[in-house]
């Protein structure tokens, strides 16, 4: 294993002087704007950065953030969580999933609640941990509840590849991988949307390349800037967007040149193509069904597909959010977490009504945790 140079991950990207200088330049450029900028940060990771580092406090009034649908936990519809719970309830099944997913409420409760009832549900730090669990429990069926955007799909693919190579028959998959560009289309299809620029998540493009956003730029004439996750990255990207707006341009820009290329990681893309194909449609929480917006296993891997193997036991009833919950509008960029009547009252991270409050990448959670100080 190569030595981890962890310091390189953040060093220099939180420099106060750089951040303040960028804020000054943004203000200067923004004074020339003829209309406000409503930029959507597609990914929950960016929402988190923006709130955690208090960036809105450094920006002028004509720059607004709209939080997008790019949090894999937030967009998971209840019926998929119900399916995970149903799988976990089968005798001799170990359900493995990532982090926050176990806290999201399904219609019968969250996976954490099912775990407390005795189901064997294990949150892991990375998909490959599922391999070890399957090896150590040969008499059980281990099901990986796979979630995430383009970033995490290659890791599921690697897990699958390993399982195939080792002939590990007791490792199955329930695939919920989703795609960013169709979600952007769904947001822009709404006539009322105010969004007029995008901050694109860098980690998605590390895999897919910057090219996946060119159609967005062409179709909607909006700037798209691919951005890293550090405060300096995000401030630089905002500056780039404001400059484009002032100069009347709409282009694809890559702020995160330290890792993103136009083509992306071809090896990872090949691995994904080897195992997955696009689903006809996937129902997104709050956004409804979006065509071609998610992946499923190719038919040659049907033997590993828990959705097929356990089809008879999986609930399929579509279940909408609590009536008071405005996650849908938030994910579509039409409302702000604070517009929701139950925000911080009936709905908190301890007792979430909607998944935007559960996930640490969710907009409501970020607002709750990092709300600016009045």
């Amino acid at each position: 294993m190569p030595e981890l140079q962890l310091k390189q991950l953040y060093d220099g990207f939180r420099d106060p002087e750089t951040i303040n200088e960028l804020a000054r330049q943004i203000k200067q450029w923004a004074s020339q704007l003829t209309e406000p900028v409503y930029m959507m940060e597609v990914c929950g990771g960016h929402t988190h950065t923006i709130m955690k580092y208090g960036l809105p406090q450094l920006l002028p009034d004509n720059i607004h953030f709209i939080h997008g649908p790019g949090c894999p936990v937030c967009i998971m519809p209840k019926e998929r969580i119900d399916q995970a719970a149903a799988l976990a309830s089968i005798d001799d099944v170990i359900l493995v999933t990532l982090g926050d997913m176990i806290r999201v409420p399904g219609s019968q409760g969250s996976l954490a609640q099912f775990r407390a009832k005795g189901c064997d549900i294990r949150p892991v730090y990375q998909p490959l941990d599922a391999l070890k669990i399957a090896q150590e429990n040969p008499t059980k069926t281990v099901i990986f509840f796979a979630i995430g955007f383009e970033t995490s799909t290659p890791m599921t693919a690697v897990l699958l590849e390993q399982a195939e190579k080792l002939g590990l028959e007791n490792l199955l998959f329930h695939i919920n991988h989703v795609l960013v560009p169709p979600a952007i289309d769904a947001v822009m299809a709404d006539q009322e949307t105010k969004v007029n620029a995008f901050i694109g998540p860098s980690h998605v493009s590390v895999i897919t390349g910057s090219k996946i956003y060119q159609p967005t730029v062409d179709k909607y004439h909006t700037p798209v800037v691919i951005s890293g996750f550090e405060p300096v990255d995000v401030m630089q990207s905002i500056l780039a967007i404001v400059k484009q707006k002032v100069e009347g341009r709409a282009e694809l820009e890559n702020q995160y040149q330290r890792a993103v290329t136009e083509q992306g990681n071809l090896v990872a893309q090949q691995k994904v193509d080897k195992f997955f194909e696009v689903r006809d449609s996937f129902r997104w929480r709050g956004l409804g069904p979006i065509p071609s917006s998610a992946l499923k296993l190719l038919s040659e891997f049907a033997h590993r597909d828990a959705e097929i193997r356990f089809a008879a036991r999986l609930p399929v009833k579509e279940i909408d959010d609590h009536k008071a919950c405005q996650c849908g509008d938030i994910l579509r960029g039409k409302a702000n977490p604070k517009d929701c009547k139950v925000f911080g009252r009936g709905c908190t991270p301890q007792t979430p009504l909607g998944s935007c409050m559960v996930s640490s990448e969710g907009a409501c959670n970020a607002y709750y945790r990092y709300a600016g100080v009045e």
Partner: protein
Amino acid sequence: MAKPTQIQLSHGGGGREMAELIGKIFFDAFDNPILRREEDAAALNLSGQTAFTTDSFTVAPLFFQGGDIGKLAIAGTVNDLAMMGAEPQYLSCGFIIEEGFEIDKLKTIVSSMAKELEKSGAHIVCGDTKVVPKGCADGLFINTTGVGRIVRPGISVRAIQPGDAVILSRDIGRHGAAILTAREGLELESELTSDCATLWPVVQQLLAANIDIHAMRDATRGGIAAVLNEWTKAANVGIDVEEKLIPVCDEVRGVCELYGFEPWDLANEGTFVIALPKQAAEAAVEIMQRHGGCDSAAIIGTVSDEHAGKVVLHSPWGSKRYLELPQGELLPRIC
């Protein structure tokens, strides 16, 4: 017949095996006259105000960089006493051991307990051992209960006042990060060790120097975020902290980056926070800095009468936000 190398159910049965286990392992390590008397209960001489506390330790893995469950079980309880301005005196110790546990490992753990006890001068004067069938416990659980003589009465969250300075004894997040890396088998470029340590010696020096301490708390689970939030609520004050003044080592920062955690949410086992009058702060920091493990002690914030019940974190670039309590289980972010 060869001696068993693993704990058997019979070791908890009250018969010869149990007597041998207790005599050979526990009594040898924790030896003192009160324990040796082997009565049903220890007879203690206590005078004046006494602090009394208990804690159970269920850490996994049992061994980590910078300590093990034994060191933790002593330091944890002794620190709870020290934080009340009490000199740790007597401890009880209960073991719940899973059948099959290696006796050598138990010996290592017990000897690190004995070593840690020396640092505060406290003694284990009574104890209990239970062995449970395989699968009923995760290796070994330890409970320790302790009493200590209160040397300085009145140290309490309720004594915190607006205008007080808030001091942090050292860099944060090490225990949480060390446990996480031990669990995940992460190889870091340099060694990350837990901060696990007995705090009584440094507290003793602060008390000896007559530093006017209002409140003191070791930042264990929930990290300094939990301590500061509890303080604001209990004392009905606000606390402002400067992010750039909070020491965090590179390894902990790196682990936080990888998993999406924040250092103030991570557990510590030898790090504490003090609230005290501003005028006394520098002298306190100076005393602490002379002490091993506390050389990065620093004033990190101030108590105020604004935004009562809230901790406000000021960023190095001038923005501010509330520092909330960490939520439930710490789980890594997904994207």
